[in-house]
């Protein structure tokens, strides 16, 4: 699988002198320009409280990593914020608009687009169809609009061009007519990210984008994520691999047992005793090799 041509311009985190420089690294701290604000989010499954977040803000235009040991509630929090699950209580807003009780597809339309931990490529559609499906506001998407091909033909052409540009950026343009089911695991991750960008999101939520991806492709994915940030898109992502996170993130939020136990710049989090306890004291991380391997 091709993993060449990675412009792994691992730009140093913007935090160095960025808007987060003056923010104090304590859980629930307010940010200068939050795009996403969540308060008192609680979700329990029976007797188990999976997520119990007092306050969390995500700074606009940064890469924020959400880390934590297995079962910390990272994916559950993702599902709650994106409307794929309902919390027992809590309020949260995106770009100043409340998102409580807003269905998943409406959250996406407002500009917060997510990917999934288990990649969801639409297997029996071609790579290009996967991309075109994601384009927002299509006239031919309505039942009756579908019959008026003369109305959506031009829009379709424009979407096709944009899709091809994105595919070229993710080095998938040669595969455009292959069915997505024939792609390798890593290529599916790339396709899913490219497809999310097709929605024109102002914020992307990546649920373990590096899981099951070979190390060379990890570099490529990291390059794409920093490029996104540099274009002004906010990125919130869940990840396990500490090396990856430290290198790329502007801000790190540490979740353990459903609660935010620490947040701050990579340097702050690295030395935080609570984080070390959460990762090493109570639970061992899986061996590195098992996770970064990818099937050919």
């Amino acid at each position, binding site marked *: 699988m091709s993993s060449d041509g990675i412009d792994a311009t691992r730009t140093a985190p913007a935090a160095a002198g960025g808007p987060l420089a003056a923010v104090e690294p304590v859980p629930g701290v307010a940010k200068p320009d939050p795009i996403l604000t969540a308060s008192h989010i609680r979700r329990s499954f029976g007797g188990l409280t999976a997520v119990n977040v007092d306050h969390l803000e995500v700074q606009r235009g940064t890469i924020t990593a959400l880390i934590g040991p297995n079962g910390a509630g990272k994916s559950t929090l993702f599902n709650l914020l994106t409307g794929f699950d309902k919390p027992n209580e809590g309020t949260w807003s995106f770009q100043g608009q409340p998102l409580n009780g807003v269905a998943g597809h409406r959250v996406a339309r407002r500009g917060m687009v997510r990917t999934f931990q288990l990649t969801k490529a*639409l297997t029996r559609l071609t790579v290009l169809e996967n991309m075109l499906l994601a384009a927002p506001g299509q006239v031919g*998407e309505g*039942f009756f609009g*579908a*019959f008026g091909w003369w109305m959506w033909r031009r829009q379709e052409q424009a979407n096709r061009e944009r899709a091809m540009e994105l595919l070229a950026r993710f080095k998938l343009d040669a595969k455009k007519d292959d*069915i997505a089911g024939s792609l390798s695991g890593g290529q599916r991750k790339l396709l899913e990210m490219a497809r999310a960008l097709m*929605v024109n999101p102002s914020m992307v939520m990546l649920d373990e984008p590096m899981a099951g991806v070979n190390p060379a492709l990890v570099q490529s994915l990291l390059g794409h994520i920093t490029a996104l940030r540099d274009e002004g898109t906010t990125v919130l992502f869940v990840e396990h691999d500490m090396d990856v996170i430290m290198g790329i993130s502007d801000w790190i939020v540490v979740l353990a047992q459903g609660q935010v136990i620490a947040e701050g710049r990579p340097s702050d989090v690295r030395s935080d005793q609570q984080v070390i306890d959460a990762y090493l004291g109570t639970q061992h991380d899986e061996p590195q090799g098992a996770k970064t391997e990818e099937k050919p």
Partner: protein
Amino acid sequence: MDIMMTLALSLETAIGPIAAIYVLAAIGLNMHFGYTGLLNFGQVGFMLVGAYGVAVCVTTFGLPLWVGFCVSVLCSVVLALILGIPTLRLRADYLAISTIAVAEVLRLLYRAEFARPVTGGVYGRQSFADAFYEFNDRVGIIPPGSYGIGDVDFSADELWLMLVSWACVALALGMTAMLMRSPWGRVIKGIREDEDAVRALGKDAFTYKLQSLVLGGVFGGVAGVLIALNQGNITPDQFMPQVTFYLWAMLLLGGVGTLWGPVIGPVIMWFLLTLFDETLRSLASSGALPFLATSDSGALRHALVGIALMLLIIYRPQGLVGNRKEMLVNVK
């Protein structure tokens, strides 16, 4: 036994009104399952409300036939909404269970004693299709007489119904083709692959699934209207669950999720059914198979069709016109 006669009879069934009716209902089922991934095991329920829409309007309420047709379509839409609104937000299996149950409950309701003043109960409804054939006689689209080549032979009435039935099929096929080539169809196929992924991209999967259920249901309802017109009388007990399963078998035979699969499947299936039936019957009556009574041939033909379907699933799981590569792709 006359081989030409048997073949002619089989061909008559394969292109006749009954095959066209099954094609139309299979196109609806293909919209549900083949394109959207909805497990509908109650297509016969749509056919039932379609057939009774016409029959009840004309006989019980004395309304014109075209009003009956509109009522049939409306009943199909309402049935799709009743089925879809509570279940389409849930996992796929819930729709499957509800459809099979609702179709059977509908049959029992229509045949119940208390429904007899409206639906005729177990006796059903008769003589409501006259206006349909009178229309042809009056306008003279198909003049009276006999039409055919060689042993294949249709009466004017049969040909008139065939014309209307296949026209409905053509219309349904055209609509399906246009829809599936549009962005709407792309979203529908995306939902079949992974509903959550489609929702995460800002598409309201529920509305799309409901639209698909309604459209396929209306195709089934119109097929029901054509059944009523073809027979001129209907009883509730002809709408048994096995009709749905025949449709599934035909759809699988033709090719799920393809445009022409639901057309080819029923046509070939009816051809084979009639061919087996006639061959067995003539063999039985000529005494070539001493263990086989003439009355057994009906059961044996289904066994033979079953074997044919098993061979198909083993050697050609994608159906006759399906794409094997697509079929075998790892759906994960």
